[in-house]
């Protein structure tokens, strides 16, 4: 009980840090986890664009605006100011389209009048360029036949009507799987920071020479002391896991009750066990309390960046991913990403994924083994002293 109450005191003292890590997870999740309905029909991606129309009265520019309205997520503006430029830089829009003054009259008169397209160089920007080229080419072709302005617009509109059927073969709710994967991948950072920080801090307090001496001469047996300490650390990690699992349900909702959700929660449980073992091993090495903050930050941030918690692992360089194999977070995230990509979740499809969880668990066992060896060596050294 004394150990548990000491544990609670340390948590209470560092509650602010725990809240900070949790708040970061919550805010990032709320920003990124926008709820979407299951998608089983084709819906074309609509890149966001900003249209600055300096020739709002001509039929040609009105026709182009109507086309862009249909094909893109269009917003209009009087000028391309810093708000629009910022949106382009941060990829909130794919392009800024500027229709010049007297565009309609100039095109009808056969004069060159360029539409300015400011892009961010992304695939969505390339798509906007393709669409714009397609419309303007058709417009130029009909103008060359000598048709009137309104006729040109109606002919272009008619010629660009869709004539192909697009069918989706998968019936899977891809949005929900991505949300679960995103949340649990990011949670690896918060969970690791919370567990490593607190467990190492508590253990460094108990490993303090004076406290250690006092506990040796206390009436409590060494076995009971160690068991209570381990139990307190395990209970704390378990509570952290329960908390983050509960938060996942609050943020994602019903998809968490699916098989994918349950497997992600189980994977998180194994991860919390491995992180606890890692923290226990580190606490046998760390003596100074100041070093705990350093280790907790470097370890949690390093693992998160190198294993794909912050940036999808598909976007990480191959060399980084090979190196990341040596970190437990890699196997945890690898499981989540493979689970996300499954077309159907059943025993047959999930079994091949379980090797990630097994490796993650083995990491935990290795850390425990190493902490036993390090502690034994330390005791041996102390007895020589």
């Amino acid at each position, binding site marked *: 009980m004394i150990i548990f109450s000491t544990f609670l005191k340390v948590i209470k003292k560092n509650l602010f840090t725990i809240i900070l890590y949790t708040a970061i997870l919550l805010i990032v999740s709320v920003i990124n986890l926008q709820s979407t309905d299951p998608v089983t029909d084709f819906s074309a991606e609509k890149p966001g664009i900003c249209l600055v129309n300096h020739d709002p009265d001509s039929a040609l520019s009105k026709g182009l605006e109507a086309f862009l309205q249909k094909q893109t997520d269009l917003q209009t503006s009087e000028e391309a100011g810093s708000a629009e*430029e910022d949106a382009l830089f941060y990829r909130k829009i794919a392009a800024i389209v500027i229709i010049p003054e007297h565009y309609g009259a100039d095109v009808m008169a056969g004069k060159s009048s360029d539409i300015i397209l400011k892009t961010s160089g992304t*695939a969505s920007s390339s*798509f906007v360029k393709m669409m714009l080229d397609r419309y303007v080419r058709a417009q130029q*072709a009909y103008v060359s036949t000598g048709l009137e302005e309104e006729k040109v617009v109606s002919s272009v509109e008619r010629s*660009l009507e869709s004539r192909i059927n697009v069918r989706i*073969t998968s019936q899977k709710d891809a949005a929900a799987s991505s949300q679960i994967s995103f949340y649990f991948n990011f949670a690896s950072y918060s969970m690791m920071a919370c567990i490593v920080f607190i467990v190492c801090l508590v253990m460094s307090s108990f490993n303090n020479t004076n406290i250690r001496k006092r506990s040796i001469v206390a009436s409590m047996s060494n076995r009971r002391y160690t068991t209570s300490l381990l139990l307190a650390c395990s209970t704390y990690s378990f509570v952290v896991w329960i908390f983050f699992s509960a938060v996942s349900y609050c943020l994602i909702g019903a998809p968490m009750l699916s098989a994918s959700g349950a497997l992600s929660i189980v994977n998180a449980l194994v991860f919390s066990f491995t992180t606890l073992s890692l923290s226990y091993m580190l606490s046998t090495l760390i003596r100074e309390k100041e070093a705990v903050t350093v280790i907790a930050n470097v370890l949690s941030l390093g693992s998160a960046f190198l294993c794909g918690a912050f940036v999808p692992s598909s976007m*990480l360089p191959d060399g980084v991913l090979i190196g990341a194999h040596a970190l437990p977070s890699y196997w945890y995230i690898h499981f989540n990403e493979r689970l996300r990509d499954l077309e159907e979740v059943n025993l047959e499809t999930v079994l091949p994924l379980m090797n990630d969880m097994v490796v993650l668990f083995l990491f935990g066992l290795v850390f425990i083994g190493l902490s036993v060896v390090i502690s034994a060596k330390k005791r041996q050294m102390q007895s020589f002293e």
Partner: protein
Amino acid sequence: MFLHEFIASLKLLLRKKPLVFWTIAFPLVMGCLFHLAFANIESGEVFDKVSLGVVNDAGFQKEMILKESLKSLSEGDDAIFDITYCTLEEANAALDEGTISGYVQCQEDSVDLFIRKNGIEETITSSVLEEIQADGVIITELSTEKIKAQILKGNFALDFSGLIEEITHDFLETPTHVREVTNPHMSYTMIEFYSLIAMSCLYSSMLSMTLINYKMANLSAVGKRSTVSPASRLAGLTGTLAASFLVQVIGLALLFSLLIFAFRVNFGDHLGHVVLLSLTGSAAGLALGIAVSVLFKVGENMKITILISLTMAGCFFAGMMGIETKYVIDTTVPALNLVNPVAMITDGLYALYYYDTFERFFFDLISIGIFTVIMLAVSLVGLRRQSYDHF
């Protein structure tokens, strides 16, 4: 007195290992992590060839325009598609394995595109296929009009295939009046490195906080001694702050060297402005450290926790943990940026990189200056109110 305080403070700062870690080593570690994690992120968003399957059956062989268009769209450096001609079974298997993003099958009266999910590659594929169909319609209409016009002129000896070929060539090869302009400074991962510079500037607060603690009689024995000593307090304080600033500048110089020479981070064309902003940001950090040291009546560890938490929260809102966060704050709660020095420094560096003008940069620079003055004024008020038991 100034020199004595300066040297003593310098020794003291450099001997504190956790302090050296947070102010010098931690930004360098973060810089390395950012470089490793973000090396590929932007190349992944650029348009690459779409892997497309085509069911090569009798139906496809009949669609001459589609066949020729797909062939031309999969050739050359600016090819849109990487096409695999296959059977229906092979196409289905490749789609399930994810080696193609979709496949085309020609039916009696329509062209069908089969995909596995919605996405930009799938949308581009569908759009290009629609374009091919639309081009066919337009070329047919243009050819009909031209033939009609020739017949009305009494020209009956027409070379139909030559005419259609000419119209097709004119239609597809005539350049469109769309001029694409792309700012060369569009690398949005720069925000991560800029927020890192800002974080490093703000971590100087720990240096000043540590040294000010040594000046406070209620916190340390050294503080008691220096408070009762007849030495000039102003000279002592300036010596202390100069030492903090020097250590901070060394840390910043190391960080800039790593980012510029090893990782080739682009700070735009105005390095002088970047240095000015970073030094002002460091001064803001020092002022923040003094304010926290004076205003919070807690132990040194708690003060470090407060400073790290404040800086990390500032980094979060400035986009370090997700670039999008900065944009969300800029557009929805811009007032938050007026009290967040990390955001001011990050935004100032962004303005230098992305914009040709200096208005936004100077706004950020002045904002940091005002923040520094407020912090110093608050500290001064706090220091003036401090009194110890008099005998």
